[in-house]
């Protein structure tokens, strides 16, 4: 089983391939259809942010095992070298948008996944790490 992959997001089709890879991996790990949909949607949001706000970035997908109880899960890392996010608190508020969208992307991803971590340096790029555990 291929349990690690990295997808470049340079255009809109990259979003689709990242999504497909995510669905495949989460299915292999054993997620049910609802969680599969959550994970793919989260990947879709993260990949779209890369496509909308930066030149190029990547989505890394890894299957992981939890330290304390051995549960399996999927780790999704979105990494880019884009402009970075000025105010992290703002982007995590529902309805905040700079692209004219719904502004539900990042807070939505946080709700879709179990763990969520965002690091961003203005001018250097953004890394968002999220994990979803099997129930």
């Amino acid at each position: 089983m291929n349990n690690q992959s990295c997808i470049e997001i340079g255009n809109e089709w990259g979003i689709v391939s990242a999504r497909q890879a995510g669905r495949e991996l989460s299915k292999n790990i054993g997620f049910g259809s609802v969680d599969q949909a959550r994970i793919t949607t989260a990947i879709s949001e993260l990949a779209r942010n890369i496509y909308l706000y930066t030149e190029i970035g990547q989505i890394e997908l890894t299957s992981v095992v939890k330290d304390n109880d051995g549960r399996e899960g999927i780790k999704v890392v979105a990494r880019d070298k884009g402009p970075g996010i000025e105010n992290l608190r703002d982007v995590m508020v529902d309805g905040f948008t700079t692209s004219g969208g719904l502004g539900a992307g990042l807070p939505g991803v946080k709700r879709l996944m179990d763990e969520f971590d965002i690091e961003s340096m203005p001018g250097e790029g953004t890394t968002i790490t999220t994990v979803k555990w099997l129930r």
Partner: protein
Amino acid sequence: MKSVVLQHLKDNKSLYIEEWRKSLEQHEFTKQGSTFSSKDMQQEMKDEFISVVFQSIELSSEENRDAVHRFANRLIYNGWAFSEFIRSLQALRRVVLHNVSANFTKEEFVDVSVEFEDWLDEQITRLAEEFSKIQNEVMTMQKTAMKELSAPLIPVFDKISVMPIVGTIDTKRAAQIMENLLEGIIEHRAQVVLIDITGVPVVDTMVAHHIIKASEAVRLVGAECLLVGIRPEIAQTIVNLGIDLDAFTTKSTLKKGIEAALELTNRTIETSEQMQSNGGLKR
């Protein structure tokens, strides 16, 4: 003026074909998408490639272009991986330069090898050109085919139309959906439009945003939009994302949507029995 090296290749054609064939033995010609290719099929492909390349020495550049074009065409339609062909031309370079250095003097060798490199570069460029040209054609064709499949507005009853959306929605498709929707509403004089998203694999904020915008536009032209075909897992992700679809009437299936649409236009579907009993009452 015939170049020295081409004459040399022509004179020693059978020798070179033999040696090139041998050096290609360790080359594995593969097909894209890991489709199985047998040894025989590979050998056939290699032989054809060899003959196309050596033919080019004798053919005019026009005829040669045609031959390469036909060959590239077959490559693409049968799904052969392109990089191996470039690699095998590089194998030919090794074979020829090795022999040339034995057959010519040192002074001649420089000129001859430059000539040969030019000829080989020409071959590689031509193959790559034809290959990418055909691949572009295929892509344009697929795009057109996809566009034809994408989002038609289907009138099902008087004043009621359905738009089934199948597949991924990107920016281009979203624009097209909007256009079809609005034009179709005017054309069919629809009052209610059902947008069916059963076939949409992922509804993220962008897709939702496009659907919301489309329904607003529909409202502006005086019709109403119902969203149907929301699968349970999609419903949950929409709630998680916090997307507000309050402005929409939503139904789980197209069937329920059509019933609701009929209600909105003051009609119902009755069985013939019901009709008779109703008719009976009226009398």
